[in-house]
């Protein structure tokens, strides 16, 4: 399907509209214009609202451009907006999201690409069964698994703590400070694990399909040349699949950045990702709702995926289509 989606970019196939100003053409371009307006409208409204002062917002013309442009709402949303007595604005959530994002993207892609590679080139007994379960797992509503994962994280946190603390007498004897309690639940590392787990089906599918499309003979040639599992992965497969890694990165960056559910359940206020903090800022009101600040905050949160989207262009399209469609 990756190939089919490339078709999507290869150029139109339908009949060509006849003359430049035929009635069909007017209808087509007219419809598309209206459609584009509908899709652009909210972005436009968000931008103009975020640039207005509150008195102007209260005038009630959401479509009107700002009479007096002010960046105060942006400043406030970024560094001053309050949730409770914390008035650090969205910046904290932004950095939390970054700290969640970077390891999650790297780890999930590393694990999924190796899994996909093992599935495509090194099938073993039962590997297809695990893969099928994994793909079906992608359709299981998260709600079914959320609670047991809380328990899993807690128990493994305690297990790791027990292991670490076993070294404490030794470390203390050597004059070092002992290990503290290690927690997965509520910590960034816990959320990274959750993102890795739930990113696994789609990424593994993506990589498996890609590696399957790599000619098998290439793999055979490498084996004849004496390369093993990791040798072929790092020396042959990895260098020739950079595009698919970029696609996976786009997929994961937007997906993890936009996550709300896991952020709200598996973290705590200090480690809230940006989306959760955004919701808190907008829905935690001190007297009057400051719509301009809210919209600035909303835009700030949407900025990262938007930048990724506009910068990556066709790769984004390829990513979502490849991630969504079975190969």
């Amino acid at each position, binding site marked *: 399907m990756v190939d089919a989606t490339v078709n999507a970019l290869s150029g139109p196939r339908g009949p060509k509209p006849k003359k430049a100003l035929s009635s069909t053409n007017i209808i087509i371009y007219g419809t598309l214009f209206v459609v584009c307006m509908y899709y652009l409208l909210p972005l436009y409204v968000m931008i103009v609202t975020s640039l207005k002062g509150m008195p102007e917002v209260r005038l009630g013309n959401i479509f009107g451009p700002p009479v007096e442009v002010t960046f105060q709402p942006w400043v406030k949303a970024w560094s001053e907006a309050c949730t409770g007595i914390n008035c650090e604005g969205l910046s904290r959530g932004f950095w939390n999201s970054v700290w969640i994002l970077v390891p999650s993207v790297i780890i999930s892609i590393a694990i999924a690409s190796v899994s996909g590679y093992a599935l495509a080139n090194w099938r073993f007994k039962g590997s297809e069964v695990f893969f099928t379960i994994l793909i079906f797992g992608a359709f299981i509503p998260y709600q079914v698994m959320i609670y047991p994962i809380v328990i899993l994280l807690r128990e493994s946190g305690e297990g790791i703590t027990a292991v670490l603390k076993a070294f404490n007498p030794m470390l203390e004897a050597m004059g070092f400070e002992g290990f503290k309690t290690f927690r997965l639940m509520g910590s960034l590392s816990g959320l990274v694990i959750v993102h890795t787990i739930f990113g696994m089906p789609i990424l593994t599918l993506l990589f498996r399909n890609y590696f399957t499309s790599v000619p098998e003979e290439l793999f055979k040639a490498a084996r004849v040349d*004496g390369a093993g599992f990791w040798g072929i992965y790092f020396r042959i497969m990895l260098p020739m699949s950079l595009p698919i890694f970029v696609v996976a990165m786009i997929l994961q960056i937007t997906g993890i950045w936009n996550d709300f559910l896991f952020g709200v359940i598996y973290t705590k206020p200090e480690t809230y990702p940006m989306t959760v903090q955004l919701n808190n800022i907008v829905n935690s009101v001190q007297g009057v709702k400051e719509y301009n600040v809210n919209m600035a905050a909303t835009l700030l949160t949407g900025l990262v995926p938007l930048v990724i989207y506009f910068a990556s262009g066709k790769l984004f399209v390829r990513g979502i289509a490849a991630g969504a469609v079975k190969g």
Partner: protein
Amino acid sequence: MTYSVEIKQLDLAFGAVKVLQGLDLNVSEGEFLVLLGSSGCGKSTLLNCIAGLLEITDGQIFIKGENVTWAEPSERGIGMVFQSYALYPQMTVKGNLSFGLKNAKIPKNEIEKRVARAAEILQIGPLLDRKPGALSGGQRQRVAIGRALVRDVDVFLFDEPLSNLDAKLRVDLRVELKRLHNQLQNTMIYVTHDQVEAMTLADRIAVMKGGAIMQLGSPDEIYNKPRNLYVADFIGSPSMNFIEGHLEGGRFKVDDMVMPMDGYAFAAPQTADRPATIGIRPEHVVTGELVPNAPLQFAVDVDLVEPMGSDTLVYAKLGQHPFRIRMDGQASVKVGETISIGVDPSRASLFDTATEDRL
């Protein structure tokens, strides 16, 4: 003597599907063996087993007398060339050639030496710093051969190496391969579905069908003395004419025709009477002024004529039986005409209709 490659009772099954069964094959030192068959006959599978890319179910494989049944592909002393070239796209030609040597921890200067030698033999010196994407099909295939060459191995395995090339290039490279074999004198096992390649290249051909070797022999044997109906039908283009009839007292009878099989070399001296099938190659039929010299003569009705330039292929009817005749390109034959033809029974083949084996 030790064979270069020796396969004993090889079984391969994917689940319940048996792909290869009880297969035995010996390849002598320096021999050029071609595995020939239509797709799905198991020829590539067998090659992959020899290379160690497929794990066999039962049996043993020896290379140079060493039991390599469970060895890794790189431990077997083989080099392999693939149909799709299978060059590593991100490496230069040089990188491609030296990848296997690096994996085997060969010293650097030795690598240089071997790469240079291979480049010289294959005349790909100027291409060493290019990436495969910048090469033509023929150049890629040379690099692929070079990759096997640098490994300095005893056995070369070719998996339909010329199939992806266009017709003209294929002929050129075929000739070059033959020359290479003459020069290197390595054992080569070569898989193809193209009988011309097989006939031109092979010291011996193994015709395969359904995971078994139908006939193993020199190109001449395969062509002139096919061991069964399948091989007879498979080799030769256009393929052999078959007519079902009876063998009675050393004569072949069909309808009201009787063909004395004088000069035919029977496999067994006293062959009992039985239903039999005669096979006559279209190119072994003579026409025109040569007919009177032929031991057997018939008259056939011409159905269709296909002029092919060098030859003319005539579709005719011998009694009720369709019969193809390859004639000279200059022959002028018209549809509806009745012509006389001559056949030499010593060049024909006779098969037992029931067992399909050569009589």
